[in-house]
């Protein structure tokens, strides 16, 4: 009980009312839900987000994605196989971010949905048609259905227990693919499209006789660049959907759950359906990514479901910036770039790149750099990841924002990009 005189002493009238008196009477509504006096409009009713900024961001993002064949040239990464991976794993990471960055649930088993998406797409190629549309639909639907089941069980727990549960489920899927489910997954050989598959829908149109079965979209083979363009279009669509979700009331509820789940239930929300929905949406994103992997290369193997693949998407999201819209894609590009380009950098290439260093010092420079490239690319990635987590917990996007703020001298206090 507080009996200090200072707190209990009666106050003079001005003290009693305090600064609040300067504002309007504290409650001028008489009753009911209708405000008798509306708050001022104009700048006061400014939209929550500058809408033009979102449109601008979408246009810039689309431009960056569609011009990848140009601006990736100097980096030696402008070949279709790698660009496809950038786009596909970008989708994977953007979807993962809806669960992790927005809702605050760290799944360690998202690769399961990626793998299931791939298998579903390949089965669609085998059973129905080489057209990618049914394959993509099947990949998304089946991954979503699996996400409902896994999410329903895993979301009973949160924090580390949720992570462990998802990891357990994903490893279970991985091991089942190698053992019990071999009739569906074709075990270690991997599931592939064969020329004598039934392909019911193609058979109706009489197009099921092909010498080499390849995924196609109305006659356009998904080999090479068309595969990239398809993935790029899906990536842009995936980005726009994620943007809309982030800006919707649903997105705000997810952020509320991340921020304070107890409060969410005490303001009247049943949080479980929201978390499950977020889980299923991100599972469907992963299924789409898996389906696209099968589209660009009609082969599905269980290694896609291994826990390392689940960990990779976590790294991508954190590296780029969890909870941001652009970060996950950036992280995906960076990690896939390291995996494919940095890892291929041998001593000979390194030597030719360091021509400009005087002969005597060159060997020393190579000795220092070589552990970080080639087989040692994981070391570079590890160091980069540590630096980002320690100095920029908001990921690379936060780093860019800091740089941007240096130039604009402050700028908006809180961006939502």
């Amino acid at each position, binding site marked *: 009980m507080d009996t200090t005189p200072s707190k209990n002493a009666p106050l003079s009238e001005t003290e009693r009312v*305090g600064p609040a008196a300067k504002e309007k009477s504290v409650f001028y509504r008489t009753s009911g839900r209708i405000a008798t006096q509306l708050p001022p409009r104009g700048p006061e009713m400014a939209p929550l987000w500058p809408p033009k900024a979102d449109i601008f961001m979408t246009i810039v993002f689309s431009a960056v994605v569609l011009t990848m064949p140009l601006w990736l040239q100097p980096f030696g990464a402008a070949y279709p196989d790698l660009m496809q991976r950038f786009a596909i794993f970008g989708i994977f990471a953007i979807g993962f971010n809806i669960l992790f960055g927005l809702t605050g649930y760290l799944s360690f088993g998202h690769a399961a949905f990626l793998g299931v998406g791939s298998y579903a797409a390949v089965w669609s190629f085998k059973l129905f048609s080489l057209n990618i549309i049914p394959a993509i639909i099947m990949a998304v639907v089946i991954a979503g259905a699996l996400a409902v089941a896994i999410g329903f069980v895993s979301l009973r727990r949160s924090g580390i227990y949720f992570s462990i549960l998802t990891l357990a489920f994903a490893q279970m899927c991985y091991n089942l693919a190698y053992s019990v489910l071999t009739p569906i997954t074709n075990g270690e050989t991997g599931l592939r499209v064969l020329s004598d598959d039934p392909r019911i829908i193609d058979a109706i149109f009489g197009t099921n006789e092909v010498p080499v079965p390849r995924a196609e979209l109305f006659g356009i083979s998904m080999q090479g660049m068309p595969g990239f363009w398809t993935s790029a279009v899906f990536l842009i669509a995936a980005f726009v959907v994620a943007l809309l979700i982030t800006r919707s009331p649903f997105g705000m509820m997810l952020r509320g759950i991340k921020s304070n789940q107890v409060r969410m239930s005490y303001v009247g929300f049943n949080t479980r*359906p929201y978390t499950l*929905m977020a889980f299923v949406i991100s599972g469907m994103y992963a299924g789409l990514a898996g389906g696209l992997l099968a589209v660009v290369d009609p082969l599905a193997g269980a290694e896609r479901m291994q826990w390392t693949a689940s960990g990779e998407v976590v790294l991508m999201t954190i590296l780029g910036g969890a909870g941001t819209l652009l970060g996950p894609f950036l992280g995906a590009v960076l990690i896939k770039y390291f995996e494919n380009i940095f890892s291929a950098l041998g001593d000979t290439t390194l030597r030719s790149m360091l021509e400009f260093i005087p002969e005597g010092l060159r060997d020393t420079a190579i000795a220092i750099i070589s552990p970080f490239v080639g087989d040692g690319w994981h070391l570079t990635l590890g160091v980069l990841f540590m630096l980002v987590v320690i100095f920029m917990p908001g990921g690379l996007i936060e780093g860019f924002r800091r740089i941007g703020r240096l130039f604009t001298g402050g700028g908006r206090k809180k961006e939502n990009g």
Partner: protein
Amino acid sequence: MAVENAVLTVADVQKSFGGLRALSEIDLQIERGKTHAIIGPNGAGKSTLLNVCVGRIPPDEGAVVFKGQVITGKKPHEINQMGIARVFQTPEIFADLTVLQNVMVPAYAKRDGAVKFTLFHGMDKDTDIRLEAEQILMDLGLADKRHDDADSMSRGDKRRLELAMCLVQHPDLLLLDEPTAGMSRLDTNRTIDLLKSIKERGMTKVIIEHDMHVVFSLADKVSVLAQGRIIAEGTPDEVRANPKVQEAYLGGAH
């Protein structure tokens, strides 16, 4: 001692934690439109009682009835949807959201119910929610901070924000757990004025409070809790004059 017009009735509630009797034979009636204070020394069971009322802790025995419906065993979000809002002892807000969003979230819960997925609908289209939230923020003097991160506010402002989050739902019953704890004298008095003005709107309130100044300024009725039992009940003056209360709780300070 049946009270007519009771919004909330706590009937013979018992609760033990291990060997500790936290609440025994609690009977309480909260009258509509009134401010009911529950006071008592530390560890008397005040917060436990509030937690039983909002479904956070299930009672071992007894029932809580709200507007004629038994609410024991219901989940917190169901109880909120029936019309009970709660302010916590330490402010429970959405630290990562802006002040305005903090108030919009409960407004959505009130309008759309416990679950509604609106995935592809811009929040800016919900002007009714926005106006409602802006209005409450103006009422509580937080309007100029509406685009700040909630986490960046002072403790007193966080408490006011939490109150705004409850008021935006126009609850039938507002439960306040030490709404002035840790506040300066000026903030305490502002909160008292604020709570008085809510009373004028006919909202029923239950206040748990340590500060006698707050209790005697606001309460229509006071229940004194000690060692898990209600030892006295009545108007503030009656309670103050009760020798049993003075002995057990006030310690002769008043």
